[in-house]
């Protein structure tokens, strides 16, 4: 027998889980496509050491059989880096929005020994199973012009000098991986799901969707990004434009100060601090516009 055979069999590490159950249950909320009804499906997985929810989903895909032994298509899910730095694998694990890669099976079974429950994010349209469409989140970054509007990409020397303190302020905000946890947990962020009308082209549908997205709440991530770019010495030259966006329909005034966002952020970004700052900046901005009239 070679390494290939011994290595990846559903092995049981004798000393790690001597007392733990050999098999555990996973309940997945599935949905075949947009507008389709959702349904629960139960899977049984052999326990291995160092498992996370990603490896559970990999085993489900490889088995493609429910706990009852019925053949089913693999559960669809989204992932990439598996190091909690890309944001792709965000879902509801035991009811909590988080990345599947850092959701460790041992910990989850300590919380609830009976089963692990997986559901798609609740504030974004389901594409299939655990895959959701988060394009609204990226649309918000366009709305607030989340970039440094440099003159060009030719050599123009270094950027502005910045103090270590400024870097320490900016870096945490700049770690936002656009995962959407803060949005899923926000009471003011409600799902926007449009269905395509008959005869509507890609472009027409996208335009209608963007309009709907822009009317909805922009969310904590975009407010925080506004503060990131407005604090940058070059970015601050366009601070007014970003504050215009932040005070338009669906802007910061919609925030109900529930503070769920900061509690669920996997990168521990000080979102409520950003919201507080943004609120003050927005007020000054509006007053200034009023006096300048």
């Amino acid at each position, binding site marked *: 027998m070679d390494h290939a055979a011994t290595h990846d069999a559903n092995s049981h590490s004798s000393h790690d889980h001597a007392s733990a159950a050999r098999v555990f249950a996973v309940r997945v909320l599935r949905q075949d496509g947009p507008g389709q009804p959702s349904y629960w499906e139960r899977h049984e997985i052999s326990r291995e050491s160092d498992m996370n929810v990603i490896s559970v989903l990999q085993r489900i*895909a490889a088995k493609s059989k429910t706990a009852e032994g019925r053949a089913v298509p693999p559960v669809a899910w989204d992932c990439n880096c598996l190091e909690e730095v890309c944001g792709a694998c965000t879902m509801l694990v035991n009811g909590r929005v988080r990345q599947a890669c850092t959701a460790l099976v041992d910990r989850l079974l300590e919380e609830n020994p009976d089963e692990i429950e997986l559901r798609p994010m609740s504030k974004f349209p389901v594409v299939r199973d655990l895959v959701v469409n988060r394009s609204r989140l990226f649309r918000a970054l366009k709305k607030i012009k989340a970039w440094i509007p440099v003159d060009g990409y030719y050599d123009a020397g270094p950027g502005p000098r910045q103090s270590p303190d400024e870097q320490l302020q900016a870096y945490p905000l700049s770690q936002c991986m*656009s995962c959407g946890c803060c949005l899923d947990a926000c009471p003011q962020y409600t799902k926007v799901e449009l269905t395509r009308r008959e005869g509507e082209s890609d472009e027409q549908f996208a335009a209608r969707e963007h309009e709907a997205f822009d009317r909805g709440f922009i969310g904590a991530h975009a407010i925080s990004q506004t503060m990131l770019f407005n604090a940058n010495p070059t970015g601050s030259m366009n601070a007014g434009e970003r504050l215009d966006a932040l005070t338009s329909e669906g802007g910061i005034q919609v925030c109900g100060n529930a503070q769920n966002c900061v509690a669920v952020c996997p990168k521990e970004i000080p979102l409520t601090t950003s919201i507080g700052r943004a609120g003050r900046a927005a007020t000054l901005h509006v007053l200034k516009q009023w006096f300048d009239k």
Partner: protein
Amino acid sequence: MAKQRVMIVGGGLAGLAAAMKLAEGGVEVDLMSLTPVKRSHSVCAQGGINTVNDQTRQFGDSEWLHLDDTVYGGDFLQHQPPVKEMVEWGPKIIDLMDRLGVPFNRTSEGFRDHRRFGGTLFKRTAFAGATTGQQLLYALDEQVRRWEAEGRIHKYEFWDFLGPIIDDAGVCRGCVGQDLVTMEIRAFAADAVVVASGGCGLIYGRSTMSMACTGSAASRVYQAGAKYGNGEFIQVHPTAIPGADKLRLMSESARGEGGRVWVPRKPHDPRPPVQIPESERYYFLEDRYPKYGNLVPRDIATREIFNVCTYEGLSVEPDRMCVYLDLTHLPRATLDQKLGGILEIYEKFQGVDPREVPMKIFPAVHYSMGGLWVDYQRSASGGLEIGSTRNQATNIPGLYAIGECDYQYHGANRLGANSLLSCIFSGLVVAPGIQNWMKSLPGGAASEQPSSLYDRARRKHQQTHDALLKRAGGGENPYLLHQELGNLMTRSATVVRHNSDMQESYARLCELSTRAEKCSLSDTGHWTNQNVVFTKALKDMFPLAKVILKGAIARDESRGAHFKPEFCAAGLTSTAPAERRHEAEAWCDRFEENTRKWLKSTIAVCGEGGEPQLSYESIDTSLIPPRPRLYGLVGGEMIEEVWKQRQAGRTPATRDGNGTTAGKSSPASASAH
């Protein structure tokens, strides 16, 4: 003139840099990516990005020394002009990224701060916390979003690249892609296609790479006729955290701060590690390398850990290869202060506190130095002719490759913190060349080509796809087959390579490849079918796996990441000065002979039935003549002395000779052996 467009495949650092640079030049860009580009694998790079800077210059550093470190570290297996150009652009690239808002760490005076990385004596590495790759990628993602808002760039995210569209004259006219949500297959006309699809780590099953790093795009281009260079050079990092789903990097600094590597003397000792007494622990690195201990060079650490687990059967766990990396003897306060960040990663993913329990680690496949062959135009000063249509061009006209999926910059071994530089550089430098290419397109613009060209290509991929969904299959499970492939490749073509072993593996690889044709799908639907997409990617792993293995079998030497014990120059054994000198002379003779024989790039083309056909390309080493890498070798000082005397005795004649060989501006036309 007809409206022109460029298609970029992949939205990591290289793809995004190319997209924004082309957009700035007024070019309409389509950008196709498996994931939203902000989630690309570049986010995983932690350490930093190397460039000469004002501070290192005052300690004697220069672009030339950065070039020297890079080619010495790469064991001279890369053409030197592109590297020279890259390191010269380095400081400007950092300035640009700084202007784009990357939050680089700062000195108290407000300048960018730097740290030191492996393979150099200078503090060249700029960094943004422990997530430099993420920060650089975000800055480029933001610029691309800006152009997207202006309508200059159009993104196709959640799209899979199925293959290039090549006309009867052999010119690339676009590509076929598949929407991963709706499963629609569409042909895209493009006047140039740029492949920026990253590494191919998933061929090894689990690696430090992201799930999108299947190598499928590069493989599809290779199968369409593009040459693939130095495929056998795959970097393996010594310390990673084994996981059931992937292997995550554990920084070398853990050993730098006093971490000790060991295994129980009794194979698979079931006791918790802290209960195993000192006398029953085998500190194999300290035992075998008393001088360097746990801080032996990276490749040696990798090889020893691998040997202990595979050939000596001393892995900590019976069903999974790993050794202990032990920090528990160090004071908690020291650990928190110096290693806090990386220990948190271990804790987060393993759920175990490494301050209390030794970490379990194992080497992991980390980076592909090899990749699609690309051309360049050498300038009079030994760098690149900027704007040449040949820079980053594959052998298929109109088809370009940049970033990790090209073979150009890292030779036989990549230095830490050089990959972020090569990705951004190749992305920026490809743009002016493509703009010139589009000024004189042979046979007109893509939009002027007959629609039948695109219909035919689309239909072909549609038929392949439909056939895959419809057929009964042969009961093979693509996910389990992928594990088998990964285990096979990890076992035979990573750290230590034996010809007999690899030949056996090659035969098994061919069997697996045949079995992969009989995969049964568990999903035959037409909506977000990840099962069929994965199966296609799996099938396309085999051609590249063959390139890697066949290239490794053929290369009978040890160079950089490619190590064959049967073909390895051992150190000196004699202690008598005269005899030692004699041995050093012989060592240098063998080195020169080996250089003549093997200092050349492996070039693979896809032959009949997916069999790679190998040839070799000579290397432009005109700037820095190859010399032995002696780090840690017994008798290295003596060898170096002999080597220097030889070189001194030869100048200038030898240098001229080298210069003449490499003076050829076309590596494409360089002789194949």
